[in-house]
């Protein structure tokens, strides 16, 4: 976990906190372990693939849902239910990533690339929805671990002044992964002989290349120093450390805000393409154009959010983004006009996904350094993943056209959006303002 030049806290999801404090204290003073700029650039470019494929992989499932449904001929409810085991892979990834404290960052990264590659390829050969769910679950485990270890390597290898920018680059590439799926969709890859399965094989080719180049990756200086005994390793903190009475209130508060946001958010992102095609009559081509434009322009929301939280404060920025996200998501899932839907999608992405930086600030700034990694991991890997798991499942079960209690995806998502209002209330009522305050001051 770290802060960038502007003091903007950047979350490092799933990063083990045990090496964290020492990484702020300066480089390990061994010239043989110095990392030059060329190496750091190479490291960053290789690690962004993890972020890129996190966005890419999640988007395949969201944007090709009607095609996958058609192949396995299952109901919307079953599609929703299969998201539960799939997304639980990211939860399991948290524990797998912690193994890097024992075996080292480099081997963990390489094994996670191999695991992700293997199970992504196997996904293309799924024979039914349950084999598909299993391969995607396993792929998520390794992808989540790869991403977490990648973030740890950046935190441990990059100098403090460049760390925030490097982590920001990682987040941006996750959004580019979604745009890439949109581009492939627009190019009609799903109409080729392998249909949607080709998307998983496309994801394989760059990873094989990256696996080759990753031979040039070195173990982090911090890990080598700890292993050789040149610097003392911090004792591995308990998983429950962040639940100590003095941190508990903030953890419950931040966790609930993340969960209340993520259930409707991931319910809507997972089902928008399906909704557009089956309930609004969009062609796949139009869905692709909308996604490319909306995510391309909507990503500006990340930048504006970062600036606004520095200028106006965390709370007002979060309140505006929450309100914007709710309003434009409901408009998106209720409007019948394609042009209104286009604008609504753009603004729903701008506000709904764009509030990531301020949510990251909440998840990190409210906790002292010694538990920041643990707290961020709880927020991301438990509270937020509850949204990944249950949001899509709830929409699928309630919105099933044949048997669902509500019977349509648009209304189900709109109703779920109401869940964000309690999140907005919690921010307004309980969240302290941290703008312009040093981390030490906030911790005290």
């Amino acid at each position, binding site marked *: 976990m770290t802060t960038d030049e502007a003091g903007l806290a950047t979350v490092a999801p799933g990063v083990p906190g045990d090496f964290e404090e020492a990484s702020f204290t300066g480089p390990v003073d061994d010239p043989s372990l110095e990392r030059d700029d060329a190496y750091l650039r190479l490291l960053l470019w290789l690690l962004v693939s993890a972020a890129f494929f996190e966005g890419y992989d999640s988007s395949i499932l969201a944007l090709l849902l009607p095609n996958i449904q058609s192949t396995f001929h299952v109901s919307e409810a079953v599609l929703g239910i299969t998201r539960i085991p799939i997304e639980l892979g990211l939860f399991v990834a948290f524990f797998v990533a912690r193994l890097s404290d024992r075996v080292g960052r480099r081997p963990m990264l390489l094994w996670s690339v191999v695991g992700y590659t293997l199970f992504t390829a196997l996904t293309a050969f799924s024979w039914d929805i349950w084999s598909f769910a299993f391969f995607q679950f396993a792929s998520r485990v390794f992808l989540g671990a790869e991403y977490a270890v990648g973030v740890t390597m950046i935190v441990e290898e990059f100098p403090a002044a460049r760390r925030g920018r490097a982590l920001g680059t990682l987040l941006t590439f996750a959004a580019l992964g979604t745009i890439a799926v949109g581009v492939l969709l627009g190019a009609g890859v799903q109409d080729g002989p392998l249909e949607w399965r080709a998307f998983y094989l496309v994801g394989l080719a760059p990873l094989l290349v990256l696996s080759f180049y990753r031979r040039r990756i070195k173990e982090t200086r911090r890990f080598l120093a700890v292993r050789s005994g040149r610097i003392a390793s911090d004792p591995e903190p308990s998983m*429950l450390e962040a639940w100590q009475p003095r941190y508990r209130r903030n953890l419950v508060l931040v966790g609930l805000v993340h969960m209340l946001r993520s259930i409707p958010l991931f319910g809507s992102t997972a089902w928008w393409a399906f909704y557009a095609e089956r309930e609004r009559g969009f062609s796949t081509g139009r869905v692709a154009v909308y996604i490319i434009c909306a995510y391309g322009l909507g990503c500006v929301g990340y930048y504006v959010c970062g600036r606004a939280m520095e200028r106006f404060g965390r709370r007002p920025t979060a309140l505006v983004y929450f309100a914007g996200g709710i309003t434009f998501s409901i408009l998106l899932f209720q409007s019948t006009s394609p042009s209104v839907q286009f604008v609504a999608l753009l603004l729903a992405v701008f506000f709904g996904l764009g509030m990531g930086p301020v949510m990251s600030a909440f998840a990190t700034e409210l906790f002292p350094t010694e538990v920041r990694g643990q707290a961020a991991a709880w927020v991301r890997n438990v509270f937020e993943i509850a949204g990944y798991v249950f949001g899509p499942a709830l929409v699928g079960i309630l919105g099933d056209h044949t048997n669902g209690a509500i019977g349509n995806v648009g209304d189900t998502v709109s109703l779920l959006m109401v869940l964000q209002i309690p999140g907005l209330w919690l921010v307004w009522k309980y969240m302290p303002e941290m703008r312009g305050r040093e981390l030490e001051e906030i911790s005290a």
Partner: protein
Amino acid sequence: MSQGDSLRRGFLVGLLATAIVFVLLGGLIGVFGTTEDRPEGVAERWLTAVGDTTRSGVKGDAGTRVADHGDPSLVAALIPAGIDMHGKSAFSELEVGKAIRRDGGLQVPYHVALREGSTTAGQGVLSMVKDPQRGWQVRALGPPVAGATVPSKGGSAVSKAPGVLYLAALVIGLFVAIGCSRLVRAAEPSGSLPA
């Protein structure tokens, strides 16, 4: 009891409480879920199966599904013979709308677009009949009918959440806000959770 034991105990209690909440939520969804198939949902499944009759690898299975939900002889009207779909689903677009009652039966508006070529039956209504053993069945295709259109052409959605449900959602949201508020307060160092 040490602080570690207390944390573990609190964690297990929290886990159990979360599990109970989700079981109750699942039960609630089950109670309010519909046990009867909607004709529009069945019509959509049937059209999907019809589209799949030209799709490599699933043709046989698609034929079975077409027969399960309706009359297989109707496929020829939707997909003219002799058009090569390149092993893909015949339909690049597929949408159904809200069913209307007419002539003693139900008619579901639909719209499909062929991947290749064209069909005169690209839009219209599917006449549905409820069979006591097999549930809703597609029995005939008809031309477009006034008052029965798909949502993208201005028609109603298959199902619409009543306004009262939005009101109920707001009330549930209020209870969630109160519950979360209490949880945050209880988690304060002087709160009532085990420390």
